[in-house]
């Protein structure tokens, strides 16, 4: 326990005795947001403060509510993929893949192993990209801007890989229902191998800058903690839950897309504070690199798409020559394909936890009901409880370490 923490606790105790004596009128109301440099996203917190100590927080969200669930009821299935991009836009491929897997579960398609391994590589790259943002922003909020500047360059390298695969940087619309739209070409393999060769050095440098840095640790150890039981009660998933000590990872519990073939560890923390969340994300980046290496080494041969002609666009040569392919092409683009009726729930491990898709289909061209189980929306409820009794600067760090992405919060 460092000196500063002890002083913090003393002040907190002193203030709480004061609080017991003071009345409501003595508190300051401080408005944090919705536009604020340190809340990375637009959400508002009205803080009731007793000096520097936060007594309570009232949250307002919905400043970027774009009605995804209503839009999905009016779009054919393949047009929902660009919507899922914009949920957790820091790791959009994971959202895309999750949606495709949900529809594939509904129609009962079986995806070839090669496509599954390619999906795993893309999803783990997206996870690394998401964790880069979160950890560098934690650093930037404590004043350590160097980590942010150095590590964002590696996001550009990941963007390069995405561009080779699908043509877009951020909102990728990667993959198709039934597999991927094209095979990985040699450039993709070259870029991934270069990334795996060069990123460990940069990650080690970033770790050396921050992980055992005295000032950084003093700022974030024992800040914004939550216990495992409370985290489970609040529906936490993902790195935030694992930092509190519960090893729930959808990739292990309900494996999808051949994750059971890979060997990787699930890092868990002990106290659920900001430092543990930072460490869990660091370790997850190392584990993701291991998974990508294993997928590259064991990449199976075969097709990169399933045999689902009602959903997967036929090859262009066939469309020009074969009547059947032409008809499939027309039906898919016009959205006139038959979908079985039913309801399916599928979840993937997103950058922030269990990203679930609840799809109810009535056989029509669009979903009857599509609900996104968004991890940010569910665990952000616990924020007032996590910051009660801490100082304003600690509240800012807690929020950045929870990785609340506004797109996923409001959908």
């Amino acid at each position: 326990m460092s000196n500063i923490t002890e002083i913090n606790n003393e002040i907190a105790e002193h203030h709480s005795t004061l609080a017991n004596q003071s009345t409501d009128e003595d508190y300051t109301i401080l408005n944090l947001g919705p536009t604020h440099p340190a809340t990375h996203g637009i959400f508002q917190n009205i803080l009731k403060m007793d000096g520097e100590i936060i007594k309570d927080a009232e949250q307002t969200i919905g400043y970027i509510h774009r009605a995804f669930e209503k839009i999905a009821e009016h779009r054919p299935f393949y047009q929902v993929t660009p919507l899922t991009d914009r949920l957790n836009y820091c790791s959009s491929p994971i959202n895309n893949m999750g949606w495709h897997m949900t529809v594939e579960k509904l129609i009962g398609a079986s995806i070839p192993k090669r496509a599954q391994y390619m999906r795993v590589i893309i999803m783990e790259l997206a996870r690394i990209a998401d964790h880069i943002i979160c950890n560098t922003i934690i650093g930037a909020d404590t004043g350590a801007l160097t980590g942010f500047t150095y590590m964002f360059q590696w996001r550009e390298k990941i963007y390069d890989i995405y561009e080779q695969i699908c043509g877009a940087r951020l909102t990728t619309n990667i993959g198709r229902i039934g597999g991927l739209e094209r095979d990985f070409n040699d450039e993709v393999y070259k870029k991934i191998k270069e990334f795996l060769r060069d990123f460990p050095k940069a990650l080690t440098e970033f770790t050396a800058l921050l992980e055992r840095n005295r000032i950084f640790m003093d700022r974030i150890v024992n800040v914004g903690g939550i216990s495992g039981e409370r985290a489970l009660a609040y529906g936490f998933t993902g790195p935030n839950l694992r930092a509190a000590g519960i090893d729930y990872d959808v990739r292990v519990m309900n494996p999808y897309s051949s994750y059971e073939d890979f060997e990787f560890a699930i890092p868990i923390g002990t106290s659920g504070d900001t430092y543990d969340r930072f460490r869990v994300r660091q370790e997850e980046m190392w584990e993701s690199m291991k998974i990508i290496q294993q997928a590259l080494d064991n990449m199976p041969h075969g097709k990169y798409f399933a045999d689902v002609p009602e959903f997967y666009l036929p090859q262009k040569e066939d469309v020009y020559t074969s009547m059947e392919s032409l008809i499939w092409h027309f039906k898919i683009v016009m959205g006139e394909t038959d979908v079985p009726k039913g309801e399916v729930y599928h979840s993937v491990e997103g950058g922030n936890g269990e990203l679930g898709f609840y799809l109810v289909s009535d056989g029509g061209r669009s979903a009857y009901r599509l609900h996104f189980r968004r991890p940010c929306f569910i665990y952000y409820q616990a924020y007032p409880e996590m910051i009660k009794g801490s100082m304003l600067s600690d509240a800012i760090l807690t929020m950045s370490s929870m990785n609340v992405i506004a797109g996923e919060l409001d959908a």
Partner: protein
Amino acid sequence: MSTNINIVQAPAGVEGPGFFATSIDKMVGLARANSLWPLPFATSCCGIEFMATMGSNYDLARFGSERISFSPRQADVLLVAGTIAKKMGPVLKQVYLQMAEPRWVIAIGACASSGGIFDTYSVLQGIDKIIPVDVYVPGCPPRPEQIIDGVMKVQELAKHESTTRRNSPEYKELLASYGIE
């Protein structure tokens, strides 16, 4: 020795030993254009592309936007990046009103320009419904090069703007059409 650092071209004027005479408009325009301080009003995905633009690969700071300001009083350009929902509209207007003249607005991305792919009941279909916009940068999200192009267009606007434009009746009429005094 050759260098790839370009010095800004001096405006047309009369030069002599120890003095340079030109019109105030041009001097002020030159100073303003090369020191635009942006206010990043980043709401969603375009905000991440804006962060990439400020990063070292694309580096918006070369264009004079070294110091991003989150306080409207100290900013020149309002960069609206991302979807603006109807709930956020009044907040955006309030931030715009607090900016001091001269101020420019860049709408980055399809959502800020026109509502983008979100033609729904809850999304404002373009920020030009509530504030006057100078430059629209299309894209979903636009590449950092496009964002830099947008900033360069504002630089052009700032360089050639007359110093009395902000007090002119046409400008006041423009603001009045948005309900801004």
